[in-house]
């Protein structure tokens, strides 16, 4: 691109129609480039080309996923709670007459592989700005992480960096981390997944819009200076497949985040919203000014004029296209009535935050960008933001699916003696996916704000929203790539069911969904098929459960060479608790309380943690999903929390009943005396991963009431034993004992030890 010496203006573009342009290097296809020329009636300027390449990238335009994501809109149940849905920065749901909550998950996978700490940190920063842009105060974060094998040397580079980045950013902005998940699987070796969720709360009246409306209104850039961070990041970094040999070529300069500035952004924006000084607001995310300018202009009613030289710069010699493409973090765009502009600037200044008027809203219908008086961009904003290419890419069921389906884990050799089963319980508890995650969660602040009611290691995070009423929310983030590999439709629904159940286990009523869809290359028909199946699974599932998908994120190209990751839909479910004081915690209650299992245990071992840990096996058909059952279960748990008839509850998922008992014992410090039901096969009962099951602890005297509440809903409940402070660990009658020390020795301290710390 060095052939351009002087600034490439619209005039120059008109005069030099045959200039060769690097559209292909910027990731555009030839027909896409031709369409740009048609839209403009000339060749694009360099700045315009940069903007189109960014806005039409997979990351920004959703060009491969759009046709499928439509299902969410079509199948979403209608609910008066939904105040803003898909297409906004984040979905907004009403909690009560006054409060609304907004939440969203987003991926930062590729950047976190290149530079784990900063990649993960800026992922958290980005999702927090989406929450601010809706008008909400961010109140918590969560993280869903997937790495390669725990013993792989690169995991020792990536994992500590990612955790450090998430922790550092979240801790410095002052947001409690209330949960997440961490999994290891070789399929993520070259493509770790870093998905971050943020949730915010606002008075319903503070909901903001991203429209640049009102001719004459001022466009203000708020926050950090603009530097050369991640230029080309969106088109090259976020969308290009890492080639096995040379990931170096794809390495653009990475972004470094500054959580301190982000904290100021939160405070300033909320102050401005509360004082009603802002007409429109948009965060600057992956595509920087390009995206913010074109989206606000496209959502507004006219056009926009920007004088780009007014943008405060951090680096010398930045050209207009660099400024437009820069991914410098911690910036927001505000649309402000000119009469209020001075006050906006003054309030930002009071917090020590930079704020600069860079343009105005016009009625020309064009987005015009000047640089030192020369016009470098003159485009219809909708052509950038809304009218990008849309592909209906070919789909094909993977050839190996039939073979995989018949290779069932139920036929694998199993432990048979009591001693073998006992050892299996311990081996599983010590395995990377099931072991205690304190090494990670202790690096996060979980209590700042003083509203965290439940954090890790609970099934869902619970946060109080209002100290007077006690109203609060519960959120869980779940995914299972192995199940989705076996059957993406069912796998997605299993993740949905698990997140839904994890929320329900706290006593909360699930009300909304956000998702992050992590897949391989959309240009591979097999991947595209997996994607379509997963989306359909989620859309059908949410329709059935009666809770809408409010937003989410798609991350494609998670593959190294031809090897794609397991399809990994990660689902976030949000629930409401009328009074957080009634939440149901993890644990074992008190001595004499009854331990019981709600749900049905079938022989379902395919895709299970046991098959993976003990046999390195992945095959067969994932467990059945019964969403009717899940709804009844959620209704039951919410009811029992309101009547305070449960002392504790814990979802059964990876590792089955054995793991749930290990976790409850280790967390509570209590012991459990368990007697398996007549005729149950101990191995199956302990390790099957049948869906829809919850371990509950019933206070003395409530057994009959709980049983009849189950029966009236047609939910099977099986008493398993009693909690007992005098029992050391797990006593499985007629089979074996495991002391609490043995449990802790297996379960705790594993992550650090295996990372060599």
């Amino acid at each position, binding site marked *: 691109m060095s052939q351009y010496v002087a600034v490439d203006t619209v005039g120059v573009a008109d005069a030099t129609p045959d200039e060769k342009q690097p559209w292909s290097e910027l990731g555009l296809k030839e027909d896409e480039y031709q369409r740009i020329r048609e839209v403009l009636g000339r060749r694009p300027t360099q700045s315009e080309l940069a903007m189109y390449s960014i806005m039409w990238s997979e990351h920004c335009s959703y060009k491969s996923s759009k046709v499928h994501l439509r299902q969410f809109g079509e199948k979403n149940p209608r609910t008066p709670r939904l105040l803003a849905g898909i297409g906004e920065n984040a979905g907004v749901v009403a909690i009560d007459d006054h409060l609304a909550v907004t939440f969203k998950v987003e991926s930062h996978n590729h950047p976190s592989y290149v530079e784990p700490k900063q990649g993960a940190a800026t992922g958290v920063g980005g999702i927090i700005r989406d929450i601010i842009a809706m008008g909400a105060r961010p109140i918590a974060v969560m993280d869903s992480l997937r790495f390669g094998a725990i013993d792989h040397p690169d995991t020792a580079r990536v994992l500590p960096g990612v955790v450090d980045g998430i922790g550092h950013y979240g801790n410095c902005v002052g947001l409690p981390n209330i949960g997440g998940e961490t999994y290891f699987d070789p399929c993520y070796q070259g493509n770790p997944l870093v998905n971050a969720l943020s949730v915010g709360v606002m008075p319903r009246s503070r909901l903001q819009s991203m429209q640049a409306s009102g001719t004459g209104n001022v466009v203000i850039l708020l926050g950090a200076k603009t530097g050369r961070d991640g230029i080309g990041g969106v088109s090259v970094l976020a969308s290009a497949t890492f080639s096995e040999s040379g990931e170096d070529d794809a390495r653009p*300069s*990475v972004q470094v*985040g*500054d959580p301190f500035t982000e904290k100021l952004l939160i405070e300033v924006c909320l102050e401005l919203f509360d004082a009603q000084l802002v007409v429109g607001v948009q965060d600057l995310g992956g595509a920087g000014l390009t995206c913010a300018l074109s989206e606000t202009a496209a959502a507004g009613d006219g056009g926009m004029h920007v004088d780009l030289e007014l943008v405060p710069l*951090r680096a010398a010699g930045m050209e207009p296209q660099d400024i437009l493409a820069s991914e410098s*973090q911690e910036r927001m765009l505000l649309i402000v009535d000119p009469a209020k502009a001075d006050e906006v600037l003054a309030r930002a200044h009071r917090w*020590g935050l930079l704020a600069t008027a860079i343009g105005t809203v016009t009625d020309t219908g064009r987005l015009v960008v000047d640089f030192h008086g020369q016009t470098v961009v003159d485009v219809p904003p909708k052509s950038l933001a809304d009218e990008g290419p849309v592909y209906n890419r070919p789909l094909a069921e993977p050839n190996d699916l039939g073979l995989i389906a018949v290779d069932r884990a139920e036929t694998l050799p199993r432990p048979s003696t009591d001693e073998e089963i006992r050892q299996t319980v311990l081996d599983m508890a010590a395995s990377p996916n099931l072991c205690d995650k304190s090494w990670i969660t202790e690096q996060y602040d979980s209590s700042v704000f003083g509203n965290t009611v439940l954090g890790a290691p609970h099934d869902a995070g619970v946060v109080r929203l209002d100290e007077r009423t006690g109203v609060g929310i519960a959120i869980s983030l779940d995914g299972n790539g192995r199940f989705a590999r076996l059957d993406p439709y069912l796998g997605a629904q299993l993740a949905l069911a698990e997140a839904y159940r994890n929320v329900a286990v706290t006593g909360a009523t699930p009300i909304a969904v956000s998702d992050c869809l992590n897949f391989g290359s959309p240009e591979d028909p097999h991947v595209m098929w997996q994607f379509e199946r997963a989306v359909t699974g989620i859309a059908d599932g949410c329709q059935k459960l009666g809770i809408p998908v409010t937003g989410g994120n798609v991350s494609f190209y998670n593959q190294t060479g031809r090897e794609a990751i397991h399809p990994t839909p990660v689902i976030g479910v949000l629930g409401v608790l009328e009074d957080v004081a009634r939440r149901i915690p993890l644990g074992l209650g008190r001595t004499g309380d009854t331990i019981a299992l709600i749900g049905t245990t079938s022989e379902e071992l395919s895709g299970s943690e046991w098959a993976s840990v003990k046999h390195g096996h992945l095959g067969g058909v994932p467990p059945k999903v019964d969403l009717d059952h899940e709804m009844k279960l959620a209704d039951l748990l919410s009811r029992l929390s309101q009547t305070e008839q449960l002392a504790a509850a814990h979802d059964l998922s990876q590792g089955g009943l054995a793991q749930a008992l290990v976790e409850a014992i280790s967390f509570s410090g209590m012991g459990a005396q368990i007697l398996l039901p007549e005729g149950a096969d101990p191995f199956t009962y302990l390790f099957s991963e049948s869906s829809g099951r919850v371990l509950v602890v019933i206070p003395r005297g409530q057994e009959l009431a709980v049983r009849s509440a189950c029966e009236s809903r047609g939910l099977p409940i099986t008493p398993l034993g009693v909690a007992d402070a005098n029992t050391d660990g797990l006593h499985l009658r007629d089979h074996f004992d495991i002391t609490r020390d043995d449990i802790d020795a297996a379960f705790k301290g594993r992550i650090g030890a295996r990372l060599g710390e």
Partner: protein
Amino acid sequence: MARVVVDVMLKSEILDPQGEAVLGALPRLGVTDVASVRIGKRVEIEFGENAQNVEEQSRVIADQLLANPVIESFTVAVERGSNEGA
């Protein structure tokens, strides 16, 4: 004994939030003439009596351990009086 100093600085195009914060605080000390502040690491490595190839070894340490090549660059200086190569 050889002493080597490795200086590790963020690459110039990378944001240095620490430097920015210090720059912002200088006026309160009455200092107003500063254009930029960048903060990096200074690492002092003391080699043993009989260490060989001190500079080369330091480069390896800097490259593999002290600096993150994605965002940082480094310089290695063997201090005078050191018995480099001895």
